């Protein structure tokens, strides 16, 4: 072990610098052995402008564990957080809210911060799995600047359990190079083309809410239906489609990028990221409707690094940080302060901010779908078929 307080010789410093430049050591190692990391931290806390930032104040430990979604965070923001606070962000990503709930129900998740979706929060409260937030420790949360439609599900019975991170829609991404220029517009077309020209090329989420919900839309039922007859119709469709699927996976970007998959159920930000890099991949909202959602930052009961959890949430809500997150992940946020910092081409982006006539048929997920045994078992049967 290197004692970080030891002084380092000039030769050693240059040697370490060269190693770092060649990429043979990490930045963390470089800052550690040279003492620059310590110096940065000391300087950081001595400069008044930086000291003002609440997340840089106290010693919060050396790590914070975050449970979130794929392609959802700018790694540069986490690096800056670590440089400022000394806490490394230990990120794990999930494919569905059900998976997150299962981990928390089993106990001992070890998470400090997690990112639940609107419809799950009331269940987390009922199951006593989520910490009521002490808003005095999140000074960057300014309720007045948030769109209440997306921020309100974080409050249950007048208590704030979760603060708004961003919102989005669930549609599908389609590689138009494979449709012969034909535009797709509906869920009906999504499921029909999968059983025809796109056989073996379509992906659906490993997630009951969206996969069952969008199958329900084929018949014009509610995205949130738990009616046994309607679910039976959805199951019949899903079982018919299954042999034609490329995969059942919520991390679909790699397959869309490699060209193995031509179409996938897709969230706003993934659609934006794919379209940005491969313009022929377009994002479609089904004309029948589908899901409108908002995600939150929250702390699970028993979080091992509570100080770090508050520091990370507060950091991510800093508009200057959040704007970088948006530019990275391509999801709209409900925070007016962030919108003010975004360039106009982002604010006018049709993927991120769909037209009103496309938005209006969308539904928020309903809490009952999270725990309904019929939907859970349908999804499990579909996967094991």
């Amino acid at each position, binding site marked *: 072990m290197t004692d970080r307080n030891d002084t380092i010789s000039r030769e050693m410093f240059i040697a370490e610098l060269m190693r770092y430049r060649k990429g043979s050591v990490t930045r963390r190692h470089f800052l550690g052995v040279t003492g620059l990391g310590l110096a940065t931290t000391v300087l950081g806390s001595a400069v008044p402008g930086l000291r003002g930032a609440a997340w840089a104040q106290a010693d919060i430990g050396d790590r914070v564990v975050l449970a979130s979604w794929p392609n959802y965070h700018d790694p540069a923001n986490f690096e800056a957080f670590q440089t400022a606070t000394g806490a490394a962000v230990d990120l794990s990503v999930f494919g569905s809210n059900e998976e997150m709930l299962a981990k928390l129900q089993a106990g001992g998740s070890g998470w400090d911060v997690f990112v639940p979706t609107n419809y799950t929060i009331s269940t987390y409260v009922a199951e006593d799995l989520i910490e009521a937030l002490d808003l005095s420790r999140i000074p960057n949360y300014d309720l007045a600047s948030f769109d209440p439609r997306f921020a309100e599900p974080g409050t249950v019975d007048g208590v704030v359990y979760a603060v708004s991170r961003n919102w989005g829609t669930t549609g599908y991404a389609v590689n138009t190079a494979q449709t012969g220029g034909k535009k797709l517009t509906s869920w009906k077309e999504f499921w029909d083309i999968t059983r025809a020209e796109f056989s073996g090329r379509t992906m659906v989420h490993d997630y009951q809410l969206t996969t069952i919900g969008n199958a329900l839309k084929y018949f014009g039922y509610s995205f949130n239906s738990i009616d046994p007859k309607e679910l039976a119709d959805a199951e019949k469709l899903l079982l018919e489609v299954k042999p034609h699927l490329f995969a059942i996976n919520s991390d679909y970007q790699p397959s869309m990028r490699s060209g193995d998959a031509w179409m996938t159920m897709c969230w706003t930000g993934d659609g934006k990221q794919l379209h940005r890099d491969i313009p022929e991949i377009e994002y479609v909202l089904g004309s029948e409707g589908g899901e409108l959602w908002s995600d939150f930052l929250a702390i699970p009961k028993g979080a091992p690094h509570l100080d770090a959890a508050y520091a990370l949430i507060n950091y991510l809500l800093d508009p200057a940080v959040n704007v970088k997150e948006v530019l990275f992940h391509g999801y709209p946020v409900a925070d007016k302060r962030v919108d003010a910092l975004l360039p106009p081409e982002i604010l006018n982006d049709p993927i991120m901010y769909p037209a009103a006539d496309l938005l209006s048929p969308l539904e928020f997920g309903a809490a009952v779908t999270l725990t309904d*045994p019929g939907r859970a078992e349908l999804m499990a049967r579909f996967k*094991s*078929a």
Partner: protein
Amino acid sequence: MLVLPLVVVFVFSFGERGPAGGYVPAFTFDNFLNLGTRWAAFKNTLVLAPVGTLACLLIAYPLAYFLAIRAGDRWKTLLLILVIVPFWTSILIRSYAWIFLLGGQGLPALLDSLGLGNPRLINTPFAVLVGIVYGYLPLMVFPIYVSLERLDKRLLEASSDLGCPPARTFLNVTLPLSMAGVATGCMLVFILLMGEFLIPAMLGGGKVFFVGNALVDLFLQSRNWAFGSAVAVALVLVMLVTVTAYMRATRRWAGGRDDVSLM
């Protein structure tokens, strides 16, 4: 301590799913009556586990034979290291490499450029089989290698001195004497394969589903611990039956020879 988890699973298998998932105590056979809905997963496992074991054996035996009998000392060390090294990283990481290799831009693209067609490989039973053979090969190679290494080479010389052609020496001397390693390797690979879930999840894309995947789903997605426990109990029973049958078969086949030690 060893049986305690099994007892918990057994008790849970007669319970019910809680309103928000998990487990509530009850006494019902519903979970077992519902097992038919997982038939496809059992079928996939019961087909691909033996086929995977056999494929491992067919590749591992020549390799082990070469290592133990034909290879010179320097080659032997190098090859043994090559067999072991992949074990040093997680199967998860190595499966990602296979996702790329079997994906559209990997082997199929190569075959296409050679004019041999552009087959779908990833997310098929074949891809899962490749992953299985790759992941479990060392477990098959080592027991066979050890049994061949211990084989008294003078027996082979004696056989050839008495005018036996190499093929018959192999069939009548080498193969029977290495059967212990083969039996151990097959048992080891088969038992582990019956519980496998990672390789089908990574290379099967949710389309090639093992009982292990059904279990992961029931515990980690639909949170039906009671039904999950019933599936687990059923899997243990299936293993008990198949493994017992396998042991009986090998024992009868070996004609009661005591050098065929199984476990």
